[in-house]
């Protein structure tokens, strides 16, 4: 066989699979979403966050800009501030700092099992959006398990289930009842979302779905996950250096290879943010060694802009210590991010992103996106496969 053909045969999808894709619901939804975006992100240039601060990158910048709006001041020269919350000021002195929490997590995660048949991640994702009339907030939930195997004789699996949609809070439930307690919602294509959620293209339904398993094919096979935009083989993940200084250089080198995507983001700003996200990714997403994950916590502990916010209950009702920072989700749009960590196991319990929106009656409502981790780590268990498979 000709080598060109061999290469060609490796394509994940062929052109014939793609025929007719330009007019699917997904293509329509994306088009509607894009043309609703502001054309020129001009606001961005006016933000004080654009000010250059030598050597101090995005987190500081984004945090400084957002903090100026929401309250407690952060000293620009302090790497980590204790940042007592107004409500907990009495016990503020006893609250651990972000650095202390992250270092405790680093020590704990070093003791996690270092191998097994499967690298398993089980999450529950929750997201909020308003109903089509903006009268109340709805929350959708979905569970997702990913089973990645090092051994070539084991299958990669992904098991998912839509867990249904319902009013987000008791207040929303009252408004939903007043609206006749609908169990499905049809959204106008051009609905205003302030870019805080995507408009469901098909009617949104309250009912939960079936648990469905998919066997993963193609380049999933042999992949252990992603780092800095690249798929990583098991061998590459094993080769990630465990010592904090070396890990940081390794990550910075990879991040340095990324090209600015023309999205208007300041390069330094983007890189600092990517470093933070890669560390979170190493902790929550990749089958990296316990030492690497511990070092990722140690790098996080050294970054500016991460603040301790005290104890919090995660979306699954588990208690953990909260670390917060600000993220510029869209130009000029800041999102509050909270990482909930269990310092005794070193596991990330949840990531919660919060924005605020105004409902039709003027009520300010929080729109949260969260990922709660039920399991991250090695196991010799096998996935419980539902009868329904794709």
């Amino acid at each position, binding site marked *: 066989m000709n080598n060109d053909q061999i290469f060609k045969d490796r394509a994940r999808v062929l052109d014939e699979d793609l025929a007719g894709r330009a007019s699917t619901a997904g293509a329509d939804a*994306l088009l509607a979403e894009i043309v609703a975006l502001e054309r020129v992100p001009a606001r961005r240039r006016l933000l004080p966050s654009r000010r250059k601060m030598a050597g101090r990158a995005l987190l500081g910048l984004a945090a400084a800009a957002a903090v100026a709006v929401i309250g407690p001041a952060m000293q620009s020269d302090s790497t980590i501030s204790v940042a007592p919350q107004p409500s907990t000021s009495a016990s503020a002195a006893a609250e651990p700092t972000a650095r202390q929490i992250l270092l405790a997590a680093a020590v704990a995660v070093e003791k996690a099992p270092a191998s097994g048949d499967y690298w398993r991640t089980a999450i529950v994702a929750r*997201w909020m959006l308003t109903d089509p009339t903006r009268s109340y907030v709805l929350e959708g939930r979905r569970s997702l398990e990913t089973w990645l195997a090092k051994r070539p004789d084991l299958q990669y699996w992904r098991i998912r289930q839509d867990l249904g949609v319902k009013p987000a809070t008791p207040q929303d439930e009252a408004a939903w009842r007043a609206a006749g307690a609908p169990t499905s919602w049809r959204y106008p294509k051009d609905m205003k979302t302030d870019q805080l959620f*995507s408009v469901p293209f098909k009617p949104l339904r309250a009912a939960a779905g079936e648990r469905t398993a998919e066997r993963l094919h193609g380049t999933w096979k042999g992949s252990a996950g992603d780092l800095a935009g690249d798929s990583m083989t098991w061998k590459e993940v094993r080769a990630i250096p465990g010592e904090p200084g070396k890990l940081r250089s390794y990550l910075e080198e990879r991040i340095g290879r*990324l090209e600015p995507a023309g999205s208007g983001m300041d390069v330094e700003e983007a890189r600092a943010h990517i470093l933070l996200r890669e560390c979170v990714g190493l902790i929550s997403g990749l089958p990296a060694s316990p030492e690497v994950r511990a070092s990722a916590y140690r790098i996080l502990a050294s970054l500016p802009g991460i603040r301790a916010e005290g104890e919090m209950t995660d979306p699954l009702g588990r208690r953990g210590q909260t670390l917060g920072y600000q993220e510029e989700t869209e130009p000029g749009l800041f999102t509050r991010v909270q990482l909930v960590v269990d310092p005794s196991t070193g596991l990330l319990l949840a990531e919660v992103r919060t924005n605020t929106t105004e409902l039709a009656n003027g009520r300010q409502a929080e729109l949260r996106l969260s990922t709660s981790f039920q399991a991250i780590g090695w196991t010799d268990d096998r996935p419980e496969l539902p009868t329904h498979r794709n």
Partner: protein
Amino acid sequence: MSERDDRSRFEAVYRRTYEQILGYAVRRCSSPEDAADVVAETYVIAWRRMTDLPDGEAGKLWLYGVARRVLANHRRSERRRLTRHTELTGEVEHLYTTPSHHGEQDGVDEAMGMLSDSDRELLALTLWEGLDPGEIATVLDCSRNAARIRLHRARKRFAKALEKTRPSAARFASRPLIERESR
């Protein structure tokens, strides 16, 4: 140009190029979420920079160039959220879970893995995206001649890598009978 004109022009470009950009992303990303994000981000950039977007076929090549940079960088703009582009991700997932047309061939992935990113991308642009050297030159922003030479070298390196990763296949060509029996 009025906003309405912009919209209809963008919509026309989007409909005309969508399948190709989707294919570009799906063939290169290891997960449907990533592929959906690359497609979405590519068109967001196109929308924001529409004054730079050339008309006609050149527009498609320009979009490939944007998609290539997005792919190199996409992962981290925190726009990728499980909940954004749910429809699109769902559709892309189908492309990932359909059993592939091709049989798994020994050593091909390894051979592709031995190539540099730029060699792999050159071969992909010509064999997956079906671009000729002139078009590749536009996407990669180099001269047509440079594209032709680099493509030639990439082909040679791929052939070499294949020989290394599938010695049995190389021998198969010269000693078909023996090889077939020993399998």
